[in-house]
């Protein structure tokens, strides 16, 4: 099977809908917040009442221009809106106001790393639209329940070119898009809650071919992992069909996450003719050069900017910079930390080491971490001053500080009686005593078993109740053993 599949490649284009995190809706002043009681954020506009008219949310335009700039897109000056007409119970106007022939952003790209290589995926367009309400089919035995709070929430649709060649690439592409919207602070990027949604257009062809075969559009994927799995499933399914000599047909399928398969959707849902035409209720939105310049000037730093800054200004390894910037909040934590300590590498180590482990073990986000950057900076300073060491700080002190976030690290050291000693005389006395206690081991060490040093250090530490400076102890013991 795998050798058969090797003849083919998969061609994928993704359509990502991202809900913009504006306070109000796309075309009226209703709150766009998530999670309110059903049908409480609905004015006559959201309800599609007769006589109501839309007006454009300027903030949403700004957000879309931001992502346009971040993806190197051309920003259109004159933006016409269009109506996409279809009937559905959670679409109270009977049409969605979107953009058809004049998307706000065109010809951008998204770059990411996959299997150690840089990959660039072109963007056909990014346009503005509004969300529909939410239909719930399984709460009531007889009726579908409709919540219109979401109706009119601003969306951008990011349409990629068919440049994606594997499920892994799709996964990385989505990771990058999510990172982008989070850094830009225009969408929370949460696929599970539906604030970022993805449809995939998937086809296959023999490697070396240049034409495109009919594509399958897969909908309803609520995680990046499911997108990857759906692409992999579709690839195998389409290869099998083609190998059997069957014709591939353009169709829409849904992804069933439980079974891990795609299933055809009812043909009725395919028969749409959306009858797009220019939205007569909205004059074109003019985006001037000055406006774009102002948005550009106010752009937040993106992960790529931070990576450059971390590696050049702060001399951090590229690996550290990449891993830390994968998560915006972690990067922002580091940004704060970098203003509080000069030991940049130690700052990065703390984030990638003990903090990351603690968060992973407790399934927390860094935003939930009670320990503030100042505390970590203080810890680094205490280590650098020889008042404690990394092992004690990360294993003993960090849990204490998490529990008592207002206590200073120095106070914790004192309370736990862990303040490290750099008293050379005391350490030397302990060291001499330890070496006297293990004459055989000393001989073994001197005969070449250098690994035994750890044992002596451990004994000295034990003798000092953990307070001896391990570096100093190491140095003194090495000198004593050298005779």
């Amino acid at each position, binding site marked *: 099977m795998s050798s058969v599949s090797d003849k083919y490649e998969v061609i994928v284009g993704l359509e990502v809908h991202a809900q913009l995190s504006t306070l109000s809706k796309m075309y009226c002043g209703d709150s766009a917040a998530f999670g309110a009681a059903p049908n409480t954020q609905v004015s*006559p506009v959201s*309800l*599609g*009442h*007769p*006589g*109501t*008219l*839309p*007006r*454009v949310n300027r903030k949403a335009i700004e957000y879309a221009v931001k992502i346009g700039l971040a993806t190197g897109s051309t920003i259109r000056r004159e933006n016409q809106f269009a*109506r996409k*007409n279809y*009937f559905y*119970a959670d679409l*109270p*106007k*009977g*049409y969605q106001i979107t953009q058809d022939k004049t998307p706000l952003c065109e010809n951008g790209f998204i770059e990411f790393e996959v299997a150690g290589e840089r990959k660039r995926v072109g963007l056909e367009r990014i346009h503005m639209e509004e969300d529909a309400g939410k239909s719930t089919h399984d709460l009531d035995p007889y009726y*579908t329940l*409709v919540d219109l709070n979401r109706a009119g929430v601003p969306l951008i649709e990011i349409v990629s070119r068919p440049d994606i060649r594997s499920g892994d690439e799709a996964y990385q592409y989505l990771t990058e898009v999510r990172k982008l919207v989070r850094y830009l602070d225009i969408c929370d990027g949460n696929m599970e809650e539906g604030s970022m949604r993805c449809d995939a257009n998937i086809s296959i062809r023999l490697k070396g071919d240049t034409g495109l075969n009919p594509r399958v559009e897969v909908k309803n994927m609520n995680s990046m992992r499911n997108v990857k799995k759906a692409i992999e499933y579709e690839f195998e399914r389409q290869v099998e069909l083609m190998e059997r000599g069957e014709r591939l047909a353009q169709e829409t399928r849904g992804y069933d996450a439980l079974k891990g398969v795609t299933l055809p959707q009812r043909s009725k849902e395919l028969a749409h*003719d959306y*009858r*797009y*035409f220019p939205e*007569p*209720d*909205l*004059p074109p939105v003019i985006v001037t050069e000055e406006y774009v310049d102002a948005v550009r000037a106010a752009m937040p730093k993106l992960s790529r900017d931070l990576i450059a800054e971390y590696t050049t200004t702060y001399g951090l390894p590229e690996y550290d910079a990449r891993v830390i910037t994968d998560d915006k909040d972690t990067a922002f934590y580091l940004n704060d930390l970098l203003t509080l300590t000069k030991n940049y590498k130690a700052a990065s180590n703390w984030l990638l080491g003990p903090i990351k482990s603690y968060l992973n073990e407790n399934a927390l986000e860094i935003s939930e971490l009670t320990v503030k950057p100042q505390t970590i900076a203080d810890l680094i300073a205490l280590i650098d001053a020889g008042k404690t060491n990394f092992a004690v700080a990360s294993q003993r002190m960090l849990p204490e500080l998490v529990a008592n976030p207002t206590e200073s690290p120095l106070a914790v050291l004192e309370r736990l009686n862990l303040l490290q000693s750099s008293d050379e005389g005391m350490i030397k006395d302990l060291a001499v005593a330890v070496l006297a206690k293990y004459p055989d081991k000393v001989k073994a060490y001197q005969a070449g078993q250098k690994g035994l040093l750890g044992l002596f250090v451990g004994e000295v530490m034990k003798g000092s109740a953990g307070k001896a400076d391990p570096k100093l102890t190491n140095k003194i013991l090495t000198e004593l053993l050298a005779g």
Partner: protein
Amino acid sequence: MFQTHKEIQAAIGSGQTDLKSLVTTYLTNIESNRHLNAFLEVYGEEAMARAAELDGKTTGRGRLYGMVIAIKDNICYRGHKVSAGSRILEGFESIYSSTVVERLLAEDAIIIGRLNCDEFAMGSSNENSAYGPVLNARDNSRVPGGSSGGSAVAVQADMCLVSLGSDTGGSIRQPASFCGVVGFKPTYGRVSRWGLIAYASSFDQIGPLSHSVEDSALVMEIMAGADEYDSTASSKPVPSYSTEKFEKKARIAVLKNTVDHQGINTEVRSETERIIAKLKSEGHTIEEVNFDLTDYLIPVYYVLSTAEASSNLARFDGVHYGYRSPRATEMDSVYKLSRTEGFGREVKNRIMLGTFVLSAGYYDAYYSRAQKVRRMLSEQISEIFRSYDFILLPTAPSIAFKLGEKTSDPTEMYLADIYTVLANLVGVPAISLPLAKSAEGLPIGIQLMAEKHEDAKLFGFSKTLMQWSTLYP
């Protein structure tokens, strides 16, 4: 009966009348004219209560103090029913007010009721209302025109001083012509459409009907202007329409193939020619100008307006509000049955037509081409207004016709709009003035159009022309 706001203000000022007696008089008139079917609902008690309240207001009176107004049944008024003359909105109550209603009330107007109209403002005879036809007060066997038939008859028969209509292709001017009143269609975007139930969004405008030009001008002055709730509303400042005068000699264009069009009634033609001669004799310049797009007006209007209508009327689906078929069992049948039973025949015709012209494979042939012609029209009309102050046309090709006379032939009915759709297609202001009458005494309206945002100039010149009205000696 009082014919103008000025007379009413004088009578109030001299203590000859007050608002309660004024409202009582209108309510009596409404009652004695029930058979005309102009009102769908009369806010009797409410209007009396407001009159009593306003009678007690001795200082800071609004500019419409003493003006009793009725509104077309497609203009939303919070806490009041609005049905657009349709079964599909029977019993529906608006939860917000249109901008025009807010602005009129803020100037102390009294709203006395809701006026019958063609369903969703689609029609030229008011025979398409789900609540029955409106009768012309001058001859009850004739139609009042449409779609704002109720609005025209309410003024014609003195059931209110001023009414509001809406004009998408002539729906204010044509009934004004048939009923012998003034009807004004503003520049597109001059009056907010917030709260006007949409028929065709890029054509619709709310406008006044009245006996005098001055009253329409005053009401326009109050209603017009920027509105944050309507992005297509112009933010240009609103001139003082009510005091505007035009006393120069005007340069007036008459379009070729209009007055001499084959479909025109001979009396309408001869009366229009009489007015033209009169204007010439008064020293105005009147010239015939080339215009070769007359035959495109009706097709382009119906392609574009029905396209927009097919989308605008999608919201009436039986799901969230309005009529839901009792026979509906699941989503598809809620849509199909509610819309089939809730909409009337003409509305369904236009939804079908509009859906067709927007559908894949036909869009370019119909919608796109019609848009192109619309742009050409705008250019040609703009070109004419570079050399002329006004364009003069009959308002309608005929006088008020008999009920039922044209209902069997929709294309003949559509021709009733031939002279009026132009102003909506290009967005310019237009007014129908009751300047003439037929041998039988039936009103004939003369229409004047001006360049976009020259509403003030149009009002100014209209005041001059109204002095020659044979209907109002």
